[in-house]
């Protein structure tokens, strides 16, 4: 890259004003500097990145494709680790997408007390060591943690309340999203004073949902709800560590695009839902995809936080990175490199997707300034 950039800037020779021999083009350095720097960069990247990456595939495939395939699928624990990663990562990803859009929206579109604090908190997972993040969850949900004894004795007793709370919250949000803005046009559930209807209906629905769940015995009773050393803990740790990616990607884009198009849509008669899907979503689309890719890459590779909360139970709580470590400790190098090669492949795919997207995003932000894009 850098070598290209330098070479392109060389002035065209041939016809044109004659350049005196003493003239030093300020855009170019002497050849030895250019080649020296380029050579050094290539050497460092080659030794630190190139050789190890190639070596992973070499070691994995050394004994042929057949052995490689067996290493991947024959071992039930390895198989399960792939399955577990494929379960944990999408859940964490969806949680972070919902949160990321909501947080970016709040920060880019509104001024409220605590806005700066929220912006800073979003970055927290980047600055906290993943091990500490994992430990944090162990301290809350672990056996010796604050909620440990309760979760162990009758953990599921909290589920009717938790699910009802989430359900009622979603309903309230939907109520406001679909409520006709014009008071005269409100019918059915939207009639009546909001301050009375919403709290009253929320309480009634919540109580109803809790009672029904308890009566029907939806959740097991007197059993322990495992969060640490189980899949929920893995999801929590992964989501926490990858928490900033989507929001961080969206905030600058939403700020650059500005709120005017959204206001224009409202002015033309769109409701909140239409505004989001017609105007906001297309504008942040590429940034969102970019954030998802980065988030996904990090979630798949997450080791530290997951290591702490997983408890390392083979066939149960080992994700792919944990499985690689375990295979390595067991001197099963072919198996270790086979799983590693899958992660590496995913990383390379991520890089390719990222590089392709990077070309789209600057243009999106550029157009936002009102200058002609294409």
């Amino acid at each position, binding site marked *: 890259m850098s070598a290209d950039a330098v070479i392109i800037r060389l002035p065209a020779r041939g016809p044109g004003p004659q350049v005196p021999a003493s003239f030093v083009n300020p855009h170019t350095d002497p050849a030895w500097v250019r080649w020296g720097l380029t050579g050094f960069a290539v050497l460092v990247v080659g030794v630190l990145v190139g050789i190890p990456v190639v070596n992973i595939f070499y070691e994995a495939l050394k004994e042929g494709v057949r052995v490689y395939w067996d290493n991947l699928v024959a071992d039930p624990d390895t198989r399960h680790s792939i399955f577990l990663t494929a379960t944990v990562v999408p859940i964490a990803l969806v949680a972070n997408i919902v949160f990321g859009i909501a947080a970016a929206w709040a920060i880019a579109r509104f001024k409220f007390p605590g806005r700066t604090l929220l912006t800073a908190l979003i970055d927290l997972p980047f600055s906290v060591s993943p091990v500490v993040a994992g430990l944090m969850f162990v301290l809350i949900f672990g056996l010796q943690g604050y909620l440990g004894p309760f979760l162990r004795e009758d953990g599921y007793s909290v589920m009717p309340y938790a699910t009802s709370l989430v359900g009622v919250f979603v309903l309230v949000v939907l109520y406001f999203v679909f409520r006709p*803005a*014009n*008071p005269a*046009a409100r019918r059915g559930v939207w009639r009546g004073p909001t301050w009375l209807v919403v709290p009253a209906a929320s309480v009634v629905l919540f109580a109803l949902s809790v009672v029904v769940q308890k009566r029907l015995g939806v959740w097991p009773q007197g059993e322990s709800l495992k969060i640490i050393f189980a899949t929920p803990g893995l999801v929590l740790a992964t989501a926490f560590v990858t928490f900033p990616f989507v929001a961080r990607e969206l905030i600058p884009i939403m700020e650059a695009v500005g709120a*005017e*198009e959204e*206001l*224009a*849509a*409202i*002015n*033309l*008669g*769109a*409701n909140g839902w*239409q505004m989001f899907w*017609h*105007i906001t979503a*297309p*504008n942040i689309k590429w940034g969102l995809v970019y954030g998802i890719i980065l988030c996904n890459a990090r979630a798949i590779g997450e080791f530290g936080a997951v290591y702490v909360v997983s408890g390392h139970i083979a066939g149960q709580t080992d994700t792919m990175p944990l499985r690689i470590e375990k295979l390595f400790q067991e001197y099963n190098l072919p198996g270790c490199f086979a799983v590693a090669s899958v992660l590496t492949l995913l990383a390379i795919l991520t890089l390719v997707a990222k590089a392709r997207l990077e070309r789209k995003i600057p243009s999106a932000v550029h*157009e*936002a300034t*009102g200058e*002609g*894009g*294409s």
Partner: protein
Amino acid sequence: MSIRIENVTKTFGKFTAVDKVNLDVPDGTLLALLGPSGSGKTTLLRIIAGLDVADSGSVIREGEDITRQSARDRKIGFVFQHYALFRHMTVEENIGYGLRVRKRPKALIKERVDELLKLIRLEALGKRYPAQLSGGQRQRVALARALAAEPKVLLLDEPFGALDAKVRQELRVWLRKLHQEIHVTSVFVTHDQEEAFEVADRVVVMNQGRVEQYGTPAEVFERPANPFVMDFLGNVNVFHGRVEQGKALVAGAALAVADQHPDAPSAAVYVRPHEVVIQHEQSGNASLPAKVLHVNPAGSRVKVELRATESEQLINAELTSERFAELGLKSGDEVFVSASRVRVFAGNYVI
């Protein structure tokens, strides 16, 4: 539809953007909100559209209080200063958006979009994206988009602010003609007094969140209500003196005051450059001696800069080229200056 604004106030923290404004926009008028930046005109416009919420006061459309109505339901078209065109939609999709979200039939939308494309003379560019249009074209698309939903009132925020001089001139004429054709009550914001006078049939001059003057362009220009308006509407020479028996006494000269004015011991005397009269001879005590500093004959009118001999005050004058040729002025000439028209504002106004 008429719009009435009653006692509207809006503050941002400690800054009062709009301060107890009352305003009437009669049905079918094209009104200009004129004022320097920070005078609250854009905020007022956004309050009318429902894009901002007033702290107090009400907005009334044709007798109906719409203060608490959301922007969606007001049916008030708004043209944003930077157009706010939907960048991922074509020109046609942009124009049709207001009808699309109101669930009008496709055929009707198409018909209306074609009609509007013809109106803004961009029939051939319907499939383009906003980024592929020039500034003037984007402005027209923004206007068509606002008009598509047949708004009862049209608001335009600095509609020509971001355009170059020639396109701006064309669009002004076009907007004036458009308003004569469709006659929708319109309010536009501008800081350019020339633009306001040329396009609007009513002008509201705003300053620091308050209305300074309301009237037709001729009224506002001929009879400025106060020194701010006087000063804002183009160049003006300010002298300090006093008023006695209908004459303004400035630096030894007694200038006739246009309007009846009571005596005042201290007054600001305003003379516009084109109302400055330059003569070679002294005419009684109605003129003061001055020296020509600089002559700028470029443009349709000749600009002359003078300095009063006694008070050393700078005076700007504008002459027709005929009068200039008649006088044969050049810098360094000693002349006598009087005024064909003088306005006086007594008291201590701060501009």
